[in-house]
């Protein structure tokens, strides 16, 4: 090949690189390894991670059973090793699957349209706020403190250089729900968006109709962030919202230490042209056959450059496909049944775990899905180790984000949480050592 090109040595092809910058040594990375060595390395890393622990962790990343067909299908090379479907004639598979995903998300959320995906729930929520700003032409946002703390941090990063001040609204201590009076006072004629999460970070379902009324009265848009997508099997969708930003990880996506996940933005039709991200649309070909294309791309960076609605390009397509397959497996009845199981497990877990002396269920009277907050007399650090000794990872300490909630932890039970585990954890929690 070198001869065909007219080069003497491979380095002739790199002659344009100034000699002083050329790397004349080997990169200092591990030596080349055989496939069996690579597999051994990662298996050892996996074992070091300890696999035999049961867990009550949720908080924006949820363990649900992943039907086997998901990985069978997404590992087909035609899906796995295909690019963004810009050449519609030879990417109809991906395009139709995106169209089906968009439809399912719209059906679940009660919105008119949904996009092809965002990076995750946190960036999706931030992009939704920017979208509301473009729609309303206003520059302020009101955010509930019950939105996932890391989502709020990402929003602050996105707004850092935007001159878009945000006001944070607290929650009612008894209910764990957004303080509606404070919200009403904070929303003004300058508010572009009200951002809430439901079920919120405490697992409590917000009063969406009431919040929508407050936002809409002042002409602001309501954005509802949904971190636990399975909740939509049984929780009323936020139909009063203008934009829904959802994390679809629960739909068949592995925890994978926090990513890749699958954000998605859904909205009322009239806001379509301000939506970020890719959209698949139905059309016809020269013979009148139905087909699909990426559409409305004049919103996007490869056409609009600095005037685009977002700089997003690569999204989470294959993860969205996982979600699409998951939703097809469960279907209309299954998603309801699955949600009912989650509800029942969490209900049982909340009662069992708060039964012992010294353990209290917070926000107990509010409607919840599958997460709940416990307050213990002991500090979390004290019982955490006792639980770990039993190979159980307990709830998440909330004090790093909510210092006012002393000794409070966030727990999650899903359909895969065994009753045995719950009973065992309850026993450990109740067994606070007698004070000397």
């Amino acid at each position, binding site marked *: 090949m*070198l001869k065909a*090109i007219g080069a003497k040595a491979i380095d002739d092809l790199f002659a*344009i*690189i100034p000699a*002083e910058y*050329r*790397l004349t040594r*080997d990169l*200092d*990375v*591990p030596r080349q*390894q055989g*496939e069996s060595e690579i*597999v051994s*390395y990662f298996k050892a890393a996996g074992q*070091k*991670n300890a696999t035999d622990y049961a867990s009550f962790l949720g908080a*924006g*990343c949820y363990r649900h059973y992943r039907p086997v067909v998901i990985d069978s299908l997404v590992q087909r*090379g*035609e*899906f*796995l*090793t295909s*690019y963004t479907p810009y050449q519609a*004639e*030879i990417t109809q598979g991906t395009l*139709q699957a995106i*169209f089906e995903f968009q439809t399912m998300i719209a059906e679940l959320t009660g919105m008119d*349209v949904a996009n*092809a995906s965002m990076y*995750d729930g946190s*960036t999706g929520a931030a992009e939704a706020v*920017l979208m509301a700003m473009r729609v309303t032409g206003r520059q302020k946002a009101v955010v509930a403190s019950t939105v996932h703390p*890391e*989502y709020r*941090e990402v929003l602050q*990063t996105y707004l850092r250089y935007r001159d878009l001040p945000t006001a944070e609204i607290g929650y009612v201590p008894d209910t764990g729900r957004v303080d509606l009076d404070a919200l009403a006072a904070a929303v003004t004629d300058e508010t572009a968006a009200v951002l809430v999460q439901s079920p919120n970070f405490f697992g409590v379902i917000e*009063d969406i109709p009431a919040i929508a009324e407050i936002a809409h009265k002042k002409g602001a848009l309501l954005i509802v962030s949904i971190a636990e997508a399975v909740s939509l*099997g049984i929780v009323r969708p936020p139909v009063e919202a203008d934009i829904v930003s959802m994390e679809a990880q629960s739909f068949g996506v592995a925890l994978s*230490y*926090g990513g*890749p996940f699958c954000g998605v933005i859904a909205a009322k039709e009239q806001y379509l042209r301000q939506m970020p991200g890719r959209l698949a*649309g139905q*059309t*016809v070909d*020269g013979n009148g*056959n139905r087909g699909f294309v990426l*559409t*409305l791309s004049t919103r996007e*960076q490869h056409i609009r450059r600095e005037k685009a609605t*977002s*700089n997003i390009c690569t999204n989470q397509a294959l993860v969205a496909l996982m979600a699409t397959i998951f*939703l*097809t497996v*469960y279907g209309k009845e*299954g998603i309801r049944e699955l949600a009912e199981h989650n509800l*029942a497990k969490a*209900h*049982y877990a909340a009662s069992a775990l708060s039964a012992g002396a010294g353990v209290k269920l917070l926000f107990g009277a509010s409607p919840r899905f599958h997460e709940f907050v416990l307050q213990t007399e002991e500090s979390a650090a004290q019982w955490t180790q006792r639980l770990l000794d039993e190979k159980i990872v307990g709830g998440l300490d909330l004090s790093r984000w909510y210092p006012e909630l002393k000794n409070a932890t966030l727990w999650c039970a899903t359909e895969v949480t065994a009753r045995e585990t719950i009973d065992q954890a309850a026993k450990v929690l109740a067994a606070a050592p007698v004070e000397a």
Partner: protein
Amino acid sequence: MAATVEQIERKILGKVRPHQTQNEGLVFEKSAPGKRGYKLPPLDVPEVDAKAELGAAYREDKAGLPELSEIEIIRHFTRLSTWNYAIDLGMYPLGSCTMKYNPRVNEFVARIEGLAEAHPYRPESLAQGILEVIDLLQRCLIEITGMDTITLQPAAGAHGEFTGILLVRAWHESRGNARRKIIIPDSAHGTNPATAAICGYQVENLKSNPQGGIDLEALERQVDEDTAALMLTNPSTLGVFENEIHKIADILHAKGALLYMDGANMNALVGKVRPGDFGVDVMHLNLHKTFSTPHGGGGPGSGPVACKKFLEPFLPTPVLLKKDGNLHWEYDRPQSVGRVRAFYGNTGMFIRALAYILANGPDGLRQTTEDAVLNANYIRKNLEDLYDLPYKTPSMHEVVFSDKRQAAKGVKTGDIAKRLIDYGFHPYTVSFPLIVHGALMIEPTESESLEELDLFIEAMRSIAKEVEETPELVKSAPHSTRVSRLDEVQAARKPVLRWRPESK
């Protein structure tokens, strides 16, 4: 002597033959009440009355999801998959996208239970395995780029750009002045100006010189005390290495501006030259390009940002540190730009990228780059007599032709691209970079064998001949696909973005 379309199809297209593909409706159209693809185990706790429990928050209606049996689900998505072209089927020469082979061992190791089932909030003592993977990948990428430090948090290339420019801005601010503008060459990806804009910067265009590179004199005139950074893709989107890169860095640094490198084309550099050595201050990588993680039909990607020491205080939180022999996430970073994503990034992609690095080692990484450049130059040499080469500068990992000669016959780059489909190839990147009128941007990657490259060259040469003899054949391509020339105008004018029951 005009042959019919059919005759030509049968005669010359050696690599492919038409075969049947199944028709398949939308998943919703296959749905029927009562079909099931799942079975939940019996509930081991008491049932609850959901309606009583949730009150007004109870969902009365059920979402309109499809109901199918398992075999129908498998067939549905398998049939859809057969309508896609993929790297696994053949060469995918999309310039700037680096469509290289996605090793299957990557997929296997990313699904190892202890890694795939790790919750991001599990105690760090139970996460040392995955943290070691992340740490090793970070160290490898720092070494490969020649930078000092890195964050893996960004979820894709554009997200990495966003993060990188935030670092630039935070650094300038820490010195008292955020500055006002970012300079971007006219050959840049669209994400660059979009990124600069969302970070609150004005975008100033820099015209390329006649060789398609940075015009040093123009740059010198444009860079001033108001310039925050230059966003540079190197090699450029023309596949050309900026051989005066050190002077570019000097011009910027003299005015206190920074050099940002878009690492989209890093597949031309790994193991041969390091951006950190030639003056780059901050850059992003695309693990889904250079490091073989799959594109998956548009994602997920991963866009780590590597930078020099002086930008380290501004990295997104948390950062991975080693303390008392254990790895842990450090959150106390007062100068940080903040988080750009929940949790720690697209960790599943980190595992795959590290598997790729381990499979290659230092020798393999270098050879990968050499082969990628060799392949591009081989294509260039074998097509330059038939396709116009607007820039004669040496090519690195991709080569950009223009359709100038074919356009004289009324055939555009987009037509040639569609005709390539009939020959069993995915098209190259069409009409980009914008500085080349009617661009054909071809990136073969190192994955292609000589045999596959020759088939591609043969196809391109055959199409050039068709343009001379039967231009209509090319202009009406593709002829072999399920659908052809979809009506994009109608799709945009009357958007149909979801299926609705009434349209059944």
